[in-house]
Every structure is written in structure tokens, then in C-alpha cells.
């Protein structure tokens, strides 16, 4: 009830009617998985460097309709973060302007629920751009894979602490880990986690 109310309030703040579709209908069996690479972990001052997103339809990850964009940052990326995501300044020379990237991203996801691993952070990063642009925060329903994992796992070890590290979950679910971490790669792996979790009742 509260969620609906908040959503309603959020909707009212939308200042550009071209983005009504974010509140519209979507194909029932579809969700979006997305991941961002950023200059750091502080949504207030850090910026998005790349966005990777995929549609999941039923039990299929539609890699043939993938979304992957690199974003030009407003200033040079610092050395420390380059070491983590391995996106160098030169890799972003042909990146798009942040606002263009966000607009394309919103059109890709539509009103579908968004799935991610620690998705709260990624959504905050997106909100940082759309709040000034459209007056709203991302209205899509958010699904946290580590949350689903936690809930399924906790049934069997009610007293225990559950290791929610990405690679640990992948391994526990018996999923193949692919190559390096980048936004799209992580989105594919997160998508696998999501589908697998949808298909099993216990871990």
C-alpha cells in the first residue's frame, strides 16, 4: 500500500510526459537485469562509466538484445578505480554523453522490473541522473538476487549467517563464471542467478 502510494507520488512528479511509458504496462514474463561500472562507490560524487543490461524472458536471457553503453565522464577517471573496472580514459573517448546514455537506457528497460546484485546502488546511480532530468526516481520494481538467495537459503540454516558474495553465490548455485568483470558480463551472470533461483525451491 505504501509502495503504491510512494509510486503514485513519484509519478506525479514526472515533468516530461514522453516518459510516461516508465509507468505503463510491460510483457508479464520479462524483467531487466542491469549492472553499472562507476568511478567509485559514492553515488553523490561518483559517475557512471558503463551500463550493461539484458532482458530476461521466461527462462531465456536475451543476449541477442543486449544493451551496453560506455559513458564519457566529466573528468578523468582516477587510477585506483581504473584498476578495479579496467576501463581506461581512452576506452571512453567514444563514449556517449551521460544524459544520452540514460535516455537510451530508460527506453530499453521500459516499465519492466529491474533485477540486480546490490541493485540499490545501481539504482541510486541512475537516479542521480534522472532526478534532475525528469523530476522522478526510477519507478521500476526492484528485485535483489542476493535477497532471493538469502531467503531461500535461510529456510535451511535459520540460525546461520549467509555468505552473499557474488562468486560464492555463483558457485553455490553451480553456475559457470565467465571471464572478467564488466557491466555486461556481470549482468549475464546475475541473470543466470535470477533464472536459477526462479527454478529451484531449495538450495
Amino acid at each position, binding site marked *: 500500500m505504501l509502495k503504491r502510494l510512494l509510486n503514485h507520488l513519484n509519478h506525479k512528479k514526472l515533468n516530461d510526459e514522453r516518459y510516461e511509458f516508465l509507468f505503463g504496462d510491460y510483457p508479464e514474463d520479462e524483467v531487466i537485469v542491469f549492472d553499472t561500472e562507476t568511478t567509485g562507490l559514492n553515488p553523490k560524487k561518483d559517475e557512471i562509466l558503463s551500463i550493461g543490461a539484458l532482458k530476461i524472458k521466461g*527462462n*531465456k*536471457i*536475451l*543476449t*541477442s538484445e543486449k544493451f551496453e553503453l560506455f559513458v564519457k565522464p566529466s573528468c578523468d577517471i582516477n587510477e585506483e578505480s581504473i584498476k578495479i573496472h579496467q576501463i581506461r580514459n581512452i576506452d571512453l573517448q567514444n563514449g556517449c554523453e551521460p544524459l544520452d546514455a540514460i535516455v537510451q537506457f530508460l527506453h530499453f528497460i521500459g516499465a519492466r522490473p529491474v533485477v540486480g546484485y546490490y541493485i540499490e546502488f545501481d539504482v541510486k546511480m541512475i537516479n542521480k541522473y534522472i532526478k534532475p532530468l525528469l523530476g522522478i526516481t526510477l519507478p521500476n520494481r526492484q528485485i535483489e538476487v542476493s535477497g532471493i538467495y538469502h531467503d531461500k537459503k535461510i529456510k535451511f540454516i535459520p540460525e546461520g549467517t549467509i555468505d552473499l558474495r557474488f562468486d560464492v553465490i555463483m558457485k553455490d548455485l*553451480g*553456475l*559457470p563464471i*565467465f*571471464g*572478467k568483470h*564488466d557491466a*555486461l*558480463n556481470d549482468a*549475464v551472470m546475475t*541473470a*543466470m542467478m535470477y*533464472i*536459477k533461483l526462479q*527454478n529451484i525451491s531449495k538450495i
Partner: protein
Amino acid sequence: MSMYDLEAFLRSIHPFQLLSKQEIGKAIGAMNIAYYKKDTTLFSPQSSAEFLYIIIKGEVGEYYEDELIKVYSKGNSFDADALIYGKSDDSFVVLEELICYELKKVDFLTLLDSNASFKAYFIQDLANKIQSAKQKEYTTELSGFMMARVQDSYLHEPTIVEKECSIMDALRQMEHKKSSCIIVQNGDDYTHGIVTDSVVRRHVLFNEYDKNAAIGPIALHPIITIEVDDYLFNALLSFTKHSIKRIVVTRKGEIVGILEQLDLLSYFANHTYLVAVQIRKAETIDELKQASFDLINIIKKLHAKGTKVDYIAKLISEINEKIYEKLYHMIVPKELWHKACLIVMGSEGRKEQMLKTDQDNALIIDDDMDASVYEPYMKRFTEVLIDFGFPPCEGNIMVSNAYWCKPMREYKKEITRWCDMPSMEDVMNLAIFFDALCVAGEAKMLAELKASIFERTRGQDVFMANFAKAAVAFETPIGMFTNLIANNNKIDVKKGGIFPIVQGIRSLSLQQGIEETDTVSRIKELIHKGILDEDFAGALAEAFDTLLNLRLKDRLARSASGTAFDNLIDITALNQLELELLKDSFKIVNKFKKFLSHHFKLSMVS
């Protein structure tokens, strides 16, 4: 999976590596990842296939009616036939929770149309399919060297001069091009000759030949050549065989460069050539023994590197022949050398022996000689070979046995006897003798005896049918639905396939008067004579190679674990590709048996 990883993954799956960068990009762009629970039926005769599936993780079973006929796992793709022909006789069911890529039918068919070799893999006939799978096996398993072709190696620019060119001038050109030898063309009695440093040294420095005179007369000829697209390994065999240091490389007969032994050896850490030199230079039996042991080490190393087995077999033959020859020269007094002919028979004669095989040798002695003179030498010969590690022949087919060490006229008598009213033993004696190869002494004697075999058997249809009958004596271990018939998961590949092919080809070669001794060359001759159809013969040669390969692989595994050799291979140890190849090979063996039955009218003899 990022684009890069996905591309690498796809390229690791045969035949996707045949696609161009653009094509593979297209394929990747069109693929989705799907998840299926255990027991899901992906498609069946009732529901047609929509995708080419490529397994990322999990297992899928292919069922014909209720029988599981094949299991696909990580990296396998299926089922091209169902997409190409629009239907499938089999059902594909998830055996273990599956994550896979799906390539839509239309995108797959578009790829087939855009790339001919990719298409050929899926549509081509069997021989090509096996070949193409093997080629892939080579490239992944073999060290670069073994697969490398002559053109992949560094080739020195050739210095080519006319015969009238002065020696000095030719040397200057050679210096300028930094070549190591000079090719002389259009000589008086040769088209190409070669002049090396040592030739110049010998003629100009020692024999004071005029350095300004024409180079033509001092050139050595004929020259040894190899084609650019031949395997480097064959160049190595040639170096070993001829004891030379460089070989002239040709493309369709035109000289394009010089391959230096040093360049080749720098690739090839095991220095096979050195063993050949060691054998050539050995002056005592002990030195020769040392060389023969070194050879065994090299074979182990070659195998560890994953070298194709028939190359190993060729190498063993080439070097064993040298050992035999050298030993013959060491043991038998010089004046007796050319009054006799030392032969190797059976698998050694066919150059198909693997690892250490039993001795199968014999001596043919000139009718003018007293045969007993050779007796002590031959006894010694057998003893030394046993000491070198060649196991004695169980059937006592060795020069130390008087039956296999006798004058020519006695062999002639035996040949006559073998051919009239033969027993099974006579047939086998004739068979191994027919495969004989001369390794030392007077080769003409063997040629004469072989001619008499051809003469005896020509037009003898009943004899030929009895001879060929052995080829169909054993059942091929494959059932109606191309399922392998194994006993405790073991299959006898010799009875099941190797022997039928060897004996069948031997029978056809005997009938056609073909002198080659190894099975593959015999098959080529049979094509040439129009007896075997080229496509079928190609498939037969591939099947033969496959069976030998699987047997050697099994034997080497056993030699590592110390268990005894036999011809049984364990099918649970084979991978999916090997099982496929084995089945396909047995299918070809069955087809060949049908051909033999018809050709020799085997139904007429019992």
C-alpha cells in the same frame, strides 16, 4: 559473458573456428542464453527443432525411441541435421540441468550459406567429416611443430644460377643473399643440382678446381625436394632418411626456398636426426644399442607432445630399418652381404608397427651359396635384436629359425605349396610374406619371389576367395542401429576392423599385382587401378587410421600404467568424438566387407 569471451568460447567449438570474424560476430549477436530443468524435452520427432543448442553447462541425451544413443556435454552443439533437414528421428532430453546458447534456425542456416567450409562440415560425407574432426584434434592437441607445414618454417632464399655461371660469381650471389647453398639449373644431365660449402671445399680447395670455371660440373644431383604444403615432420623424415642438412622446397615443382636442418631442429628439441646419425656412426653393437634406446625415449617424448601416431609409426619404421641394416652389416661378413636378402614382414613390412613389436624377419639366400654359412650369423642377429628390446616372435618367424632362413629355391617351393591346397597357417604365412620389405642385402631376390607369388596366384579365383575370406571371418562389433557391441565395455579393434581392412586390401593387392606393402599406399594404388571408388577408398583409409590411432592411444595409456597390451579398447575411456569416429569406422568396415564378398564371390566358398 562479454563479446570477447563468447567469441573465444565459440571458437573453441568445432567447426565454429572456421567462421570469419564478421560471421562469428553475427552468430554471437543472434544468440540467447537459455536455462532448462532436468527432463525437459528440447525437441523430438513430434516437435521440430528451432535452435542450434550449444552447451555452456549441463548434459543432454539423444534418444532413439527409448534407447539413449548419445550424450552431449559442455562445448558440444546439436543438432545440425535436425535444422538442415527440418526433422529429427531422435528426441533430445535434458539429463542434467542445462544452461546453453541458442542460435535460431534461420540464423544458423544463414551462417551455413555464408561460409562454405562451415557448411561442408555439416553436410559433407563421412570421410571428410572424420578428416575435419581429426584436423581439429591435431590443431588442439599437437604441438605447433608437428602440425606446422614447411611453409610455416623459416625458408632461406635460394640462390639459383645457370650451369655456365662461374663458381666465384655463384659464391658472390650466395654471399649476397646469405644462402647456404647454390642451386644450379639446366645442367648437362639434370634440371637442378646443388652446390654446398662442402662441395666447393672439396673441388676448389682440395682438388684445385678452377674457381672461375663453370659451376655446372661440380653440382650434386638429383636434389632432394619437398613441397611447401607438406608437413615439417615429413621434412624431418627426409633429413633422417637421406642424412642431409638442407632440403630444397618447391611449390608445384617450382623452387621457392631452402629449408635448413638447423632451423628445423631448433623447433624440434628431440633431435631425431641425431639418432639416425648415431646409428650411422655406430661402430660397435653397443653403440647401436644405445642409439636404439635413445629412439625409445624420443617416441615417449613425441607421444607426450601429442604427435599423430602414424608419424610416430613412420619414424619407428624408418629408424628400425636403419638399425636392421646396420646390424646386418655389423654381424654378417662383407663378402656375404649381397648374396642374401634380409626382409621384415607383416606389420613391420607394412610400416604399421607400433611401439615395440615382435620381430617378423627372414633371410633369403642366393641359390649358389651354402645356406649353413649364414646360420651362426642369423642366430646372433636374432639374439642381438632381443637384447635391443625387440621381443622374439611367438610364431618363431625369425631369421634364427631355419624355416625363415633358407635359399631362394626353397622359398619358391614353399610359395607353390602355400598356394596349392593351403591351410590357414599357409594362408597367413603367404600373407605376411607378401607384406615383406627388404631392409638389407640384395633386394632383387625379394622382388623375384614376389613376382613368383603374383604368377602363382594370377587368375586363381578359388585360391583368392579363400585368401580373402579371412577378412570377413570376424563380426564387426556394430549393431543395426549403429550401436557398438562391446563385451564388458571392451571392443576388439583388431578383429573388428584393423585385420579386415589389412587382409581385404592385401587380397585385392595380391590379385591386382600391387607391389606396395603398406595398407594406405595399397589403397591408393587400388584407386588408381579403378578397383576402389575414390570416395569410398578415402573413407576406408580414414577408418583404418582411426582404428590404429585408438589402439595406440589405449596401448600407450596401458604402457604408462604397466598393464599388458592386447587389441581390446575400453569404450568408456573414449570421448564423444572418438566414439563417433569408432562407430563411423565400423560402418565403413562393414561396407568394405560387403564389397569384398561381392568382389571375390565369397558366398561361393565356405
